[in-house]
C-alpha cells in the first residue's frame, strides 16, 4: 500500500458504520443522469409486471392507504458519501410482492425519466427494501426522487431508484442503466462493489 506523501486524513468517529472508501457527509447530495421528472400524482402508479400472472398496479391513493413504516438507516452512495441515520417513511416491498406471487428471481426497477436498475428479488424481500414517499418527516423532494423512490439501503444508493414506477420481474438478470455503463451488477458497499469486476 503506497502512502500518499503529506496526507494525514480525517477519521470518522464511528468507523464501524462507514464502509471502505466512504466518507460521512451531513449534506444530502443529489445525483441524477438527466432532468428531474415531475409526474402528477393522479397520473402516478406503481406496477409489478413481467413474471406475474397479470400486472398489478397501485394508484397514488392506493399506495398511500398501504401500511407505512417509519425507519432510520445509513445510506452509502457509490460516489463515496455516506449519510448516517436517515429517517424515511414508506411501504415495505414485502407488501407489494406478497400480492404478486412469482417464480422470478430478479427485478428490474423502472422509473419516470427512463432510469432502470436491477436487483435480485431476494434483496427486495425480508423487510430490507421499501417504496418511500417521506424523508425527515416531509414529502420526498422531487430532486431526491419524489413523489416516491425505491430504497434498498444495504446496497449502494444507485440501486434505490428515484421516481420509481414499478418492477419488471424476470427469470434472468438484466443490467440496468448504470450497470450497463460498468458499475457493479450487485453493489454491496461493505465489499466495495463499485464497478464491474470489484
Amino acid at each position, binding site marked *: 500500500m*503506497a502512502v*500518499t506523501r503529506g496526507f494525514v486524513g480525517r477519521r470518522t468517529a464511528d468507523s464501524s458504520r462507514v464502509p471502505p472508501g466512504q466518507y460521512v457527509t451531513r449534506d444530502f*447530495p443529489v445525483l441524477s443522469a*438527466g432532468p428531474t421528472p415531475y409526474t402528477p400524482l393522479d397520473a402516478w402508479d406503481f406496477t409489478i409486471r413481467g413474471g406475474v400472472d397479470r400486472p398489478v398496479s397501485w394508484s397514488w391513493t392506493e399506495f398511500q392507504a398501504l401500511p407505512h413504516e417509519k425507519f432510520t438507516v445509513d445510506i452509502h452512495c457509490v460516489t463515496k458519501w455516506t449519510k448516517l441515520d436517515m429517517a424515511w417513511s414508506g411501504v415495505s416491498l414485502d407488501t407489494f410482492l406478497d400480492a404478486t406471487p412469482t417464480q422470478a428471481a430478479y427485478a428490474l426497477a423502472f422509473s419516470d425519466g427512463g432510469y432502470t436498475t436491477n436487483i435480485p428479488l431476494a434483496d427486495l424481500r425480508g423487510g430490507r427494501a421499501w417504496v418511500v414517499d417521506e424523508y425527515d418527516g416531509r414529502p420526498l423532494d422531487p430532486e431526491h426522487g419524489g413523489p416516491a423512490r425505491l430504497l434498498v439501503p444495504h446496497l449502494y444508493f444507485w440501486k434505490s431508484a428515484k421516481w420509481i414506477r414499478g418492477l419488471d420481474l424476470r427469470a434472468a438478470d438484466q443490467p440496468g442503466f448504470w450497470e*450497463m455503463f460498468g458499475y457493479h451488477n450487485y453493489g454491496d458497499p461493505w465489499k466495495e462493489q463499485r*464497478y464491474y469486476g470489484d
Partner: protein
Amino acid sequence: MERAALLRRLTWQTGTVISTTFETPRVKTITLAVPDWRGHRAGQHLDVRLTAPDGYQTERSYSIATAPTDEYLSLTVERLDDGEVSPYLVDELRAGDELEFRGPVGGHFVWDNDFGGPLFLVAGGSGLVPLRSMLRYHRAIGSRVPVRVLCSARSLELLIYREELMEMATYDLVDVSITLTREAPSSWRGYRGRIDPMLLSMAGWAADQMPLTYICGPTAFVETAAAGLVALGYDAARIRTERFGGTGV
C-alpha cells in the same frame, strides 16, 4: 458491443504529478503523467485514493479536465474548506508526487462526435471541468458539430479556464456565453445574474434544432438549468446532467 468494451475491471494505478496550476485562488489543475493510461472519453471521471501512514484510506471522484487526445491527464480540483481530500490536493500535492487513482469511470455524461448536435454545454462554477474535456476533444478531432457554451461564475476572477475559453470563443463553430452572478467589471459586456429561462433561451439553441445538452454544476444550478430547458421545449432524453453537492438538507 459497446457494453463489452466498457466492462473492464478497474485497477488502481499511479500517476506522477507533472505540474500544478492555479486556475483561481481556490481551484487548481493537477497534471499527471500516467505510463499506461488506457484512455478515456470526454466527460468521464477518476476515483482518487489517498493513503495515510497508518493505512487509513479515503477516495473521491474528480472529472477529467483534458481530452482523450491530450498528452497528459489533468484534474481540476476546487478546494472545499471543510473537505478532507481537496485541501490536500490543492494545498499540499506538488510536482514529483505520486497520486493513486483508477478509472475512467462513468459512461453517460460523455460526448462523442457521432452523437450529433448541435451541442449545448452549460456549466456552473467548476462544473466546467468535464465540459472543457469535451470542448478540447471537439477541437482536437476537428468536429463540425456547432457548440454553444454557457458558463456561470461568481466573478471573472473566479471563472476557471478564462484564457482558454476566450480562445475557444474565436473558433467559428463555438460560441461562448458567460454570466457573472456576484460582481462584474464596469466594462463587462457579457451576461449578469443567475441563469433563468430567458438567459438559457438567449445563450442556447432553439428547441426545434434538437440540441444535445450537457449540464454540470452544483445541484441547484443543474435543477434550474435542466427544468428551464425542459420548459423551453428541449427533449429531456437529450439532456445529460452531472451534479455535485447537496441540497443542504
